[in-house]
């Protein structure tokens, strides 16, 4: 009898801990939504900040975040897919492959602020790009690279071996098989991986603080060599560095809500698409 009692009790504790997580998560979301919704209006989304960022909207940080994502993905997606192809299709057991795997795993664990230091010393100073969209975008690209590599390799390895054998049987070479058979079959899954890494990159702050994020910029960056405003950094600036911290609270909540909607929106698309693809495969 007591054994059964302990079993019930354990189940109850486990249910409670999961429920606690869900409740906390939902109340945090509701709290941000309730406080941020007031600030959001058409003007808020389409106007740049005014009057030392105490009024106006957040159009420049929104566009800046999209620009950063675009630059980072332009670098990370092709390189990431190629590296995934290398691991899944070309790699032979040897010192090079082992070293490369080790690097990818280690890069995935490097703290984001260390990526910032790396971007500062390589892109901003050594390559003389300066603090700009290009430096910050590439730094974020380096951070996203391990995620895309892992997603691509997993997607390619999930393509059935029969596909490759059928292609070889028709006389296709290795590259033709990869390009025309394996890659197209894996592409949807690879793309969901890329979408998920967009969700990660859009919310990052530490790597861009000293590589290209602007405290304030009057205009949207028109070249790769201008600084950009970004949503996460804008939140930090308003909440910690402004002279009107209390006064701009509504703008801060509004910016947090917009960032959350962008990041969570993109990530949910990725998660749902991936779940669908998995179900289809089964």
């Amino acid at each position, binding site marked *: 009898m007591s*054994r*059964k009692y*302990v*079993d019930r009790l*354990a*189940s109850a504790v*486990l249910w409670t*801990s*999961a429920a606690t*997580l869900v409740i*906390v*998560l939902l109340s*945090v979301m509701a*709290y941000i939504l309730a406080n941020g919704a007031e600030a959001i209006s058409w003007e808020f989304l389409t106007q740049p900040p005014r009057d030392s960022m105490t009024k106006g909207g957040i159009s420049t940080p929104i566009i800046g975040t999209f620009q950063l994502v675009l630059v980072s993905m332009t670098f990370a997606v092709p*390189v990431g897919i*190629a*590296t995934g192809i*290398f*691991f899944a*299709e070309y790699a032979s057991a040897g010192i090079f492959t082992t070293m490369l795997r080790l*690097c*990818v*795993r*280690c*890069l995935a*664990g490097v*703290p*984001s*602020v*260390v990526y*910032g*230091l790396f971007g500062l*010393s*390589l892109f901003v100073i050594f390559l003389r790009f300066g603090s700009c969209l290009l430096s910050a975008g590439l730094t974020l690209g*380096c951070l996203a*690279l*391990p995620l895309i590599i892992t997603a691509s390799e997993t997607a390619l390895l999930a393509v059935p071996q029969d596909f490759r054998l059928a292609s070889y049987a028709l006389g296709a*070479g*290795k*590259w033709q098989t*990869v390009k025309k058979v394996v890659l197209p079959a894996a592409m949807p899954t690879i793309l969901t991986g890329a979408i*998920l890494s967009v*969700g990660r990159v859009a*919310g990052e*702050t*530490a790597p861009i*603080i*000293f590589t290209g994020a602007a405290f304030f910029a009057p205009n949207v960056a028109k070249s790769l060599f201008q600084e950009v405003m970004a949503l*996460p950094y804008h*939140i*930090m600036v308003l*909440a910690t560095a402004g002279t009107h911290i209390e006064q701009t609270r509504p703008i*801060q909540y509004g910016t947090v809500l917009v*960032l*959350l909607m962008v*990041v*969570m929106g993109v*990530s949910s698309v990725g*998660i749902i698409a991936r*779940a669908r693809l998995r179900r289809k495969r089964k």
Partner: protein
Amino acid sequence: MNEKTPGAVITAIASVSLVIMVFLLYFLLQEGLPALREVSIRELILGFDWYPTEEPPALGMAPLIVGSLSVTALSALIAIPLSIAIAVFLSEVAPTWVQEVLKPALELLGFLPSIVLGFLGMVVLAPWLQESFDLLSGLNLLNASVLMGAMIIPIVASLAEESFQAVPRELRDASFALGATRWETIRKVVFPAALPGLLSASLLGIMRALGETMVVLMAAGGAALVPVSIFDPVRPLTSAIAAEMGETPVGSTHYHALFFAGLILLAMTLGINLISMWIEKKGKERWMA
């Protein structure tokens, strides 16, 4: 086109990761080591005074290192038990419909930008802590650790769940067949079998906490002091780098010292990463045998 060319091109592009890793190490060493020209390594790591902007600057990182370690330890203490409970629930207890909702929700939580958590720490948690415990400021070790805990729960819980899932079904069936209850099976069969995976999941969470910047920058209070209580403010390595790098001239001793702080962080996280890889490898070999 030669049939060998694409393979060579792919291999060349793949080595970009290797190049990034090498450059990362090279630049951190190149910019970090010059700090040792002006301050001894003993003073840098064991010195207790961090006044980088005074003349002459005091560059003792001990309070920063202790700050990083204390936030990491406290957040791990909060997050790891809860994460493992959630993982056990998801893998062993939850009905399918709950799994289908909770698993994606957990993954989504992992995408929560750390700046949002840091912001909540400043505007919600800090005033609450300040009032409830009658403190001078609610921005402190406890605040940052709670948020950091929230940050690493999704990581640890989903990895832990995977390692519970990897335990072969037969082990559970054998235990049930012997008359064990579900809880007894979890505690005495599934848990020990998944232990290497749980250890590795916890280490990866700890690695993440050590390197996390925005939460500690905004919520930890920022004082470079060795904390005596959980209500003391701290300044971990990451927040020192993020807060000070923008204001220090390139090439100054302070600048090099901040890169040295980056090196310490890199060494700690790489070390943890390698240990977790080793544990994962051992764990896999166990199922092979």
